[in-house]
């Protein structure tokens, strides 16, 4: 074999090498840590603004059912991917857990404390433990802040370190932990001088200085170039392994979820319709929506041209949630029962693993 070809699987980053192990060990996971985050029957509704005429006519106030009964839990050192199309409620779920939006009902328990019951003031010290990585690294950093200011800001807010000189080594350490080495090269930069991948790493470093227990990541790599995505994902992967962080990642890319997450939860119209270990969900999908989603993911190999099972139409408006199973209008195998009875999330008969759940009457 020529040297040219021999290098094919050579991982260029040590961290990406760790990702290699992830894929290899996908089936044999080490025992997960204790439960850090527990979300129970979470509902977040937004009122729809009524026009003057409707207000006068006393039309009933309508709601967007953004999150409509979501339950899942997350252990320390675990990465869960929340997958679904836009408008399925994955971002609202994250916003509610983060405390940016008050839930209509349900609980979010973090380390034994129900954070939905806390006031803004009581919540503030807890914000240290939940940190968020945003989708667009070009927007999430204050353009007027140097890298050092961006990373120092959370420390100032939470009173870490008493002086600049005390905080400086912490800033440098966070930058290096986020893969921006040597730190001196980056510490005095403005965001506009950095590439997308570097900005995203700065945003991650700014979260790391607070040593959070839970990291929420909203499409952390979708705005980045393909060539740097794996690096950022490998960084997140190393954080939950080495720092025992729990990571909840939103993504629309099932391939990324399959590669990096331990578990996948598929959302449709405000509900989780299927969840389980990543390998189980991807290789043995139970819900017809998951099956359809998986079938339309384009494969890398041009020879592997499976016929995608394209669903017609788009996700319905979350104001008028269909009766019965919310997926039935687009479902290729829906029966009469699906039109009337709302299926609960349960272990399907065909599922091999005990923690593989789907909300479908026919699974």
């Amino acid at each position, binding site marked *: 074999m020529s040297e040219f070809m021999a290098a094919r699987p050579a991982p260029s980053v040590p961290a990406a090498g760790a990702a290699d192990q992830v894929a290899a060990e996908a089936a044999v996971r080490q025992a997960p840590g204790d439960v850090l985050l527990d979300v129970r029957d979470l509902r977040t509704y937004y009122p729809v603004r009524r026009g003057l005429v409707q207000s006068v006519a006393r039309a009933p106030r309508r709601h967007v059912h953004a999150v409509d009964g979501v339950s899942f839990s997350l252990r320390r050192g675990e990465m869960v991917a929340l997958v679904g199309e836009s408008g399925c409620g994955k971002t609202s779920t994250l916003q509610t857990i983060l405390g940016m939006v008050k839930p209509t009902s349900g609980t979010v328990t973090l380390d034994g404390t129900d954070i939905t019951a806390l006031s803004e003031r009581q919540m503030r010290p807890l914000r240290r433990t939940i940190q968020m990585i945003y989708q667009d690294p070009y927007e999430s950093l204050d353009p007027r802040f140097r890298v050092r200011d961006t990373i120092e800001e959370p420390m100032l807010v939470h009173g870490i370190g008493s002086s600049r000189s005390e905080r400086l080594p912490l800033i440098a350490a966070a930058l290096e932990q986020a893969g921006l080495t040597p730190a001196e090269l980056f510490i005095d*930069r*403005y965001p506009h001088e950095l590439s997308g991948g570097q900005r995203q790493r700065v945003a991650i470093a700014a979260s790391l200085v607070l040593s959070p227990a839970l990291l929420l990541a909203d499409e952390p790599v979708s705005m980045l170039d393909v060539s740097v995505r794996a690096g950022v994902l490998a960084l997140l992967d190393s954080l939950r392994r080495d720092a025992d962080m729990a990571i909840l990642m939103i993504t629309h890319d099932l391939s990324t979820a399959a590669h990096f997450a331990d578990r996948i939860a598929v959302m449709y119209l405000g509900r989780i319709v299927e969840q389980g270990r990543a390998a189980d969900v991807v290789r043995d999908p139970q819900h017809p929506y998951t099956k359809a989603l998986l079938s339309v993911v384009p494969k890398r190999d041009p020879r592997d041209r499976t016929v995608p099972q394209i669903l017609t139409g788009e996700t319905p408006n979350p104001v008028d949630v269909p009766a019965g199973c919310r997926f039935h209008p687009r479902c290729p195998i829906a029966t009469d029962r699906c039109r009337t009875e709302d299926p609960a999330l349960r272990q399907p008969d065909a599922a091999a693993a005990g923690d593989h759940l789907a909300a479908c009457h026919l699974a």
Partner: protein
Amino acid sequence: MTAVTQDPALAAEGLGVPAHRRGVFWTALRQRKSAMVGLFIIIFFIVLAVIAPFISPYSATAQTCAVYAPPSAQHWLGCDDGGIDMLSELMQGGRISLVVGFAATLVAMVIGGGVGILSGYFGGWIDSALMRITDYLLVIPSLVFAIVIADIWGANLLHVIIVIGILQWTSTARIIRAQVMSLRERVFVKRARAIGSGNGRIIWRHILPQVAPLLIANTVLTVAIAIYMETVLAFLGLEDPTVTTWGTILQHAFDRTAISSGAWWAIVPDGFAIAAIIVGCFLLGQAIEDSLNPRLKVAHLSIRRWRFRPLVGRGKDAI
């Protein structure tokens, strides 16, 4: 194996010497001729006002020549109805006019900036309440309102400042509010809140620095309007009669038949000074606004198009 095991994030190629962001704005401004002209005019009048007591040739209150004496070698701009040297009077008047202009603007900016930021940031009932007040002030005919207030409170320099300040903050509040409302939705502001920053901190560290250039542009524009308002109020006789401002100079000249006496020098230089400072403020203010809002830039209006470079003396595999 020659594999490069360099860090993925390190792209030394693209990273030069860290830049100074502040420099970007200043450079953009310096490229605008109008901004530099405006700035020069404003600085000229400020310097003149500061050093007026040391360089004014005569007293600005005592008679030093004949009534309506025309310009001469001794009195470059002639004399007014009281035999006072016009040049000295203009310098002295400019001091007060500028003080009134800047002080009233300060009042307007503090109220307008504050209302705009609070209204835009908090929204909800705070926004509704503050914007209703703004609307009311916006629809009141400002001159009539100023006349009434000045009349009730009495003609006094401080009152004039307050009246102008109260009348001029509304448009600033609306502009700042709109800007803050869009800033509030920016991801880096949301991120700051998610970190745990309080409202005060977010406003001080993230919102205010972002709206500051807009506030500065508005300040410069409002200075022009305030100086103009002061002139109008003085001309209508609502200014403190004991002080000398550009407005009272005009008023005196009109009242005391400068026009029928043909004493143009009692009016023209004064009017020119007022016009100049207003133009200067507008030039600078507009330039700041333009450089803040790239969408206002006129681009692609030229008929110039992309060019085709003919391949002269270059083979197919030259590149």
